[in-house]
């Protein structure tokens, strides 16, 4: 009670009697959050790693050229030994080769591209749908809400993996379909969060104030509610991206995602476990798995940091 009361003491604006000038005046909540995020070393490390991944994905072609192997190029001479087993990490293949003599590093680089594109695109698509549906469900009253909330319940209740496999089997796998499938099964979770937040925000006095001024539903939803949703949604996006990346890897692993020979972390893992190859060629399993784990970890840690930065209450109370 006491500490929060004190910490919440607003800083009086300069020019008023008794107010010392200076400090953090006039900065938007976003600027404040950004300032807090910049002080967070873990967050900075995660951002650096994610930027690195993006660069790797963007410059996959020149990188593979530099390394000297194409993503599907089979090195029959040195990639496999006389028994047909892949060669390990060394001078020719930095991270080793796979059962067809393809370079693991180059395939990882191209897999990064797939993971990021599918992960980010699916997450963004899910967020857009989820925000729109959640906002309408939360704001437009009980009739709209009961329909949309049921819809979200139904989507969330789907056995999504089975459904995804069935769908892909029927339509035939493609990157676009994979994005669609992941987005379709992710938006409802976003929608639920947004709906809950909207229900809380619409009871706030500033929404009443806007109504009493004569503002219509659309204006209130866009001007008053949406900016207050950005923080929780942003946090959720940073957590949804790694979920989508893992989802993508899962589908590819199961053979219903990215079609070989195009590389993805998921189908690399699938190759590794096929025939128990990983027992003799650990690099085959270890590097794609490590890429997946590190990427997921980076996004998750960043999500935590973003949440802390956007929620000054916890920060102010507990940080020194």
């Amino acid at each position, binding site marked *: 009670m006491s500490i929060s009361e004190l910490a919440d*003491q*607003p*800083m*009086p*604006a300069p*020019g*008023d009697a008794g107010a010392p000038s200076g400090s953090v*005046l*006039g*900065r*938007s*909540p976003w600027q404040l959050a950004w300032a807090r995020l910049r002080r967070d070393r873990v967050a900075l490390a995660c951002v650096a790693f994610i930027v690195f991944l993006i660069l790797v994905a963007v410059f996959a072609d020149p990188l593979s050229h530099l390394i000297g192997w194409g993503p599907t190029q089979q090195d029959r001479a040195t990639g496999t030994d006389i028994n047909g087993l892949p060669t390990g990490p060394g001078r020719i293949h930095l991270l080793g080769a796979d059962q067809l003599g393809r370079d693991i590093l180059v395939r990882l680089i191209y897999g990064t591209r797939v993971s990021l594109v599918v992960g980010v695109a699916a997450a963004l698509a899910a967020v857009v749908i989820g925000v729109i549906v959640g906002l309408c469900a939360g704001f437009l009253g009980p009739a709209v809400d009961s329909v949309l909330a049921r819809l979200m319940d139904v989507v969330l209740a789907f056995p999504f993996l089975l459904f995804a496999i069935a769908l892909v089997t029927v339509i035939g796998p493609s990157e676009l379909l994979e994005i669609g499938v992941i987005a379709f099964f992710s938006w409802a979770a976003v929608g639920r969060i947004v709906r809950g937040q909207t229900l809380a925000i619409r009871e*706030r*006095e*500033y929404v*009443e*104030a*806007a*109504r*009493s*001024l*004569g*503002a*219509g539903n659309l*204006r209130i939803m866009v*001007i*008053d509610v949406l*900016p*207050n949703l*950005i923080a929780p949604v942003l946090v959720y996006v940073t957590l949804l991206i790694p979920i989508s990346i893992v989802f993508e890897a899962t589908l590819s692993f199961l053979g219903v995602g990215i079609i070989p020979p195009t590389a993805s972390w998921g189908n690399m893992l699938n190759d590794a476990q096929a025939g128990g190859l990983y027992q003799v060629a650990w690099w085959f399993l270890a590097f794609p798995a490590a890429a997946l784990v590190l990427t997921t970890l980076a996004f998750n840690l960043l999500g935590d940091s973003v949440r802390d930065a956007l929620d000054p209450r916890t920060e102010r109370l507990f940080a020194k």
Partner: protein
Amino acid sequence: MTDAAKLTSTDPAGDPNTLMTLTNVVKHFPIRRGVIIKSEVGQVKAVDGVTLDIRRGETLGLVGETGCGKSTLARCITRLFPLTSGTINFDGHDISRLSPRAMRPYRRQVQMIFQDPYGSLNPRRRIGSIIGDPFAIHGVADGQERKLKVQELMELVGLNPEHYNRFPSDFSGGQRQRIGVARALALRPKLIVCDEPVSALDVSIQAQIINLLKSLQSEFGLTYLFIAHDLSVVEHVSDRVAVMYLGKIVEFADKSKLFGSPRHPYTAALLSATSIADPDRAAARQRIVLHGDVPSPINPPTGCRFHPRCPIAQPICSQLEPALIPVLNDTSAHITACHFPLADGQHLPTGRPSIEQGGEKSAS
């Protein structure tokens, strides 16, 4: 209920001095249970037949304790809530059934100031844009013109116009309430409903806001409906005062009459319970300590709703609801809903109430 409406003096709606007339305004909130098929299991009778008139240029004080329905009534007047029944006549027009679209012109004339200086301003928006909202919504001014108007308003309420681009979190409670006042004032409304505008503020700041509201009133000829639970504040600002208890007006009179010779036992108890920052006067007053708490508005007591807590209740109080009419030899300007109104100078006994719900004499 209806005869109470008829009996309140002459029809105030036709009087040119009347800005707003409420007739039998009722707001019930249904309580629904059930997961998919919701059935109504009861109603919160938040406002249960309120008849009031607000005169041009006056400050009408509305007092009552938590849960008496005063804030709900405020939101009925500003049409934030649809009415269950009853009519609201504003400046000669019935606005109680208007659609949101038809309501828009009236929204410019009836504005509201909220209780919570923290909750009533969107934390993610800049002050300039918050105060400029009324202009944006009603398409009054754009761009540079809007900015000038907003800064004019900021100056008017005692804010530094240079702080146009700041966020609410940069301001203290009192300053935020000034922002709320500026927003309410933007379209030069006729009526401002002030819902506990100072109760969340520190005392030294309260007085700043009260003085600001008063000076704006004389400058722009505003009419205020001033809702508060603090009687000393209401006494200070109001011309006439209405006392609300469990969704109903129990007494309505000029300030001097209501504070000088309260008729309703509840008014008398409320007056005596108000804290006075003056030890001698606090010690001198005869304090009536009411027993028990305000009953639930879901299932209000029969007859006079105050009877379970009233020290002078008689059996009739639990059976027959008293009409809101002039009592004893009061003029039509002082109306009270009580079967046994207090005479001038009559003190309320401090004993426990003798009538329980249903009219049976209680054992204790």
